[in-house]
């Protein structure tokens, strides 16, 4: 599923989350992000993000003989992802609690 309410889903965060599991190359990242997070990353967006994350030392390329170079998350990338996840978790918690209080929403 790809919806347009995913603007909050920052592509760098999606890529970091995807790479937190295991190293992946570009196509594997797009597949993983689409399947697990419901966001389709285009080729241009993905490599703009990869270039930015690599420049900031949050991911690093692995050696390969193939054109499909895998990337893995670095320690700095893992820390950045953990911090951001913590923030998002708080936002989600507050949102769930308030929805439940005001609207009686019990969750999806």
């Amino acid at each position, binding site marked *: 599923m790809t919806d347009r309410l995913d603007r909050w889903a920052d592509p760098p965060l999606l890529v970091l989350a995807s790479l937190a599991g295991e190293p992946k190359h570009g196509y594997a990242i797009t597949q993983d992000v689409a399947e697990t997070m419901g966001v389709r990353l285009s080729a241009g*967006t993905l490599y703009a993000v990869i270039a930015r994350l690599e420049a900031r030392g949050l991911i690093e390329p692995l050696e390969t003989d193939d054109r499909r170079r895998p990337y893995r998350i670095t320690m700095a990338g893992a820390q950045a992802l953990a911090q951001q996840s913590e923030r998002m978790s708080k936002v989600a918690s507050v949102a769930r609690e308030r929805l439940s209080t005001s609207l009686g929403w019990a969750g999806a």
Partner: protein
Amino acid sequence: MRPPTSPGATPPGSTPPGSAPHRSTLPGTAPPGSTRLARAALALYPPSWRARYGDEVRALLDDSGGGPSAVASVAWRAVPAWICPPRHLHDRPARMRSSLATALAAWSMLTGLGLVFAQLTQLQGFTAPGHPEVRWAYAVFDVSLALSALVAGFGGLPLWLLMLRRAWRERRPRDMVYLLLPLIAPAAYLAALIVTIKLLGRANGVGPWWFLVVALAGFAAAAAAAAGPGLALRRLQPRGPALRVAAAAAGVAAAVMAVAAAAIVVAVVGLCLWEHHFAGYHHGTLPGVYLALVVAATTVTTVSAARGTRAALAEP
């Protein structure tokens, strides 16, 4: 650095779990034409970006297929890649060398144009009575040209000596010649000029056609004098403080030269407006072409020098 949270991580050189192509699970469904178009859109990216990521993006497009959205995405993302290129793709020394070579060539052309201006206006004594702006422009031009040449010369001298010493030490005669061209070419030109004037000159100088020949030969000499160090920069690939000093000096020299160019524009426009009976100023074509060349050379000089200076001053 090893990731702390990627248990499936594999060491460099091996194939990690996610690296196998997934063509069988999601074959490309877009027509081949759009895939080709998306691949062609990669040409819009800066060369360093293409060299680093081009193959990977092509592989991704091969695996996932193209389509109009892929074309648009690849093309659109080329804009930020130019405006704000990723830091790790910056090759500062290469940027400085490339900018220096271009700025030097354009600066030489601009200097040649300035000397033509001096020959056709100041040395002829053309002024516009009642309009001191022309005389002021001459003075600004003289000071700016001299200052720019001094800054360029002194700023580039350490780099030039460094390359000359290396070419000498490594027995690279071709590079020695390239580096000596800024001395050889003007000297040869001046010698030829003196001989030409002695043989063909009249009381009031050479005729218009010979003046054109002499001027074109001067531009050829300036081009050779600038191309020599440019080629040496490319072949010897110097780095370090001398390169940074030269790049920073090129920025200052270009800025001062832009002032000289502005003075040329003021003087030529002033003569066209107020004293158009002088030879060459009675109609706008020749001055117009001349001013267009001046503006073009100034633009290339300042843009190239600014890029080199920015690379020189950037944090390592």
